[in-house]
């Protein structure tokens, strides 16, 4: 059988914050150019797992891991991994849109500039391509030099996605990207996520199960640090195999 093309994979991944274990023997495979959703009750470890993928947990003191994490088959837990490069390849979008207090344009080209791009024409191209990729170009093209914070919440979130795209990633991690948005802004982001998978692999953490059902191809259900079930999204929502999953998604929990 042909092996599935995985963008990310963990094997026997365990993670501790000090002595508290937050991930327990997680084996997950994130298929390339697909949208994978992680669902589960608060505190089950979704954000923690997401942060493992681009080594954001390195920033947390006392956080230790064992097991392996593979990015396109390559181990990324070791010292030799270039974390700056890794975070260029694996971008992250957070719950609260967090544009810098600068213009829309400056926000988008911030990353490329940090990584050494100086040519104005090239920066303009990157800005346009990224803003188009994040489906916000038409809304901001006439006011690229206005303050980013003057945008609506949904626009700010798409600007943050554009900022992530500007450094040329192939994986985009999203941690509850719509939690702070109204339904219309949410629908726009969801639509964008579906478009992004032509070029990118997307992993999204969401506490909104309907959202997971709408946007994702695969869904992983986590509970108390473990990945309980992982399957194609229609299977998870129509006939999950594990009773825990069933109870959670049907709202029969606790």
């Amino acid at each position: 059988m042909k092996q599935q093309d995985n963008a990310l994979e963990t094997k026997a991944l365990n993670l501790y914050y000090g002595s508290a274990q937050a991930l327990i023997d997680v084996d997950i495979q994130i298929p390339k150019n697909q949208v994978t959703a992680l669902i589960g009750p608060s505190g089950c470890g979704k954000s923690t797992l997401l942060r493992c993928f681009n080594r954001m947990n390195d920033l947390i003191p006392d956080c230790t891991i064992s097991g392996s994490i593979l990015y396109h088959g390559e181990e990324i837990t070791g010292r030799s991994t270039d974390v700056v490069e890794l975070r260029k390849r694996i971008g992250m979008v957070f719950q609260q849109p967090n544009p810098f207090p600068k213009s829309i344009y400056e926000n988008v080209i911030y990353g490329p500039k940090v990584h050494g791009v100086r040519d104005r024409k090239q920066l303009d191209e990157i800005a346009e391509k990224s803003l188009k990729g994040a489906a916000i170009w038409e809304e901001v093209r006439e006011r690229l030099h206005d303050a980013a914070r003057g945008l609506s919440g949904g626009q700010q979130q798409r600007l943050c996605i554009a900022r992530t795209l500007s450094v040329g990633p192939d994986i985009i991690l999203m941690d509850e990207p719509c939690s702070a948005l109204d339904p219309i802004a949410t629908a726009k982001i969801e639509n964008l996520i579906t478009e992004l998978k032509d070029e990118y692999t997307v992993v999204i953490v969401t506490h909104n199960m309907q959202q997971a059902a709408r946007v994702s191809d695969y869904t992983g259900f986590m509970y108390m640090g473990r990945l309980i079930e992982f399957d194609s999204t229609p299977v998870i929502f129509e006939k999950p195999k594990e009773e825990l999953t069933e109870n959670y998604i049907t709202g029969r929990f606790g």
Partner: protein
Amino acid sequence: MKDHYHKELEAYQVSVGGYSRFAITMLRDAFDAFSSLDRELACEIAGGMENFCIQTDEPAMHQEIRVPRKVFLSLRSDQLEEQGLKLIALHQPVAYDLRTISCCMNLISSAERIGRYGKDICHCTYKLPEGIHIRGMARLPEMAEGALSMLEDSLHAFQTRDLSILEGFSSRDDVIDELRYLIYEDCISIMEEDPRTIPYCATYLLVDRYLERCADHACKTAEKIHYMITGERVDIR
């Protein structure tokens, strides 16, 4: 502790089970009306022959207005379907809950079909003279019992979620199919022997067909119940 939505979902299943029970009883009574050529009972089920079958000495304005069961059958089917759609629209059910509502929807439309076959059997009753049947109605009583017991059992499995009740459904359906063919052959030869039997045998052939369809509904319902409970598809017939 169950939340409001899950209580509503359970109540919905009870209502759908009740509707299914109503339809099965309608079929059973229709067959009884046919067996005893009881036009009044047939009329109470299927309507359409009121002038002909309801006799009363009461002056017209004191007569009780009786709505035939077929009217309730069709109104209730729409009501229940709408309730199911409302549950889906308001709660976006998933997994077992979703499969349950889907199964309920199937049960509703099957029940309506079954009730309507009952109505059709009543119409056959009107076509025959009052009195008695010929040749013990071929083997129709046996066939009716077989089909009705399958319907009863599928409803029971739905209500108890006990799949073991559905074991043997495909061989029970084979028996029905075989009977259907035997009755068909019998009727042909009876009619050949004596053309005066034609009005009887012609209705027997219709009822034969209706009952076979009812058993088929029982099998299809059984498949849906199996899917509701396990999430796996099976092919019963």
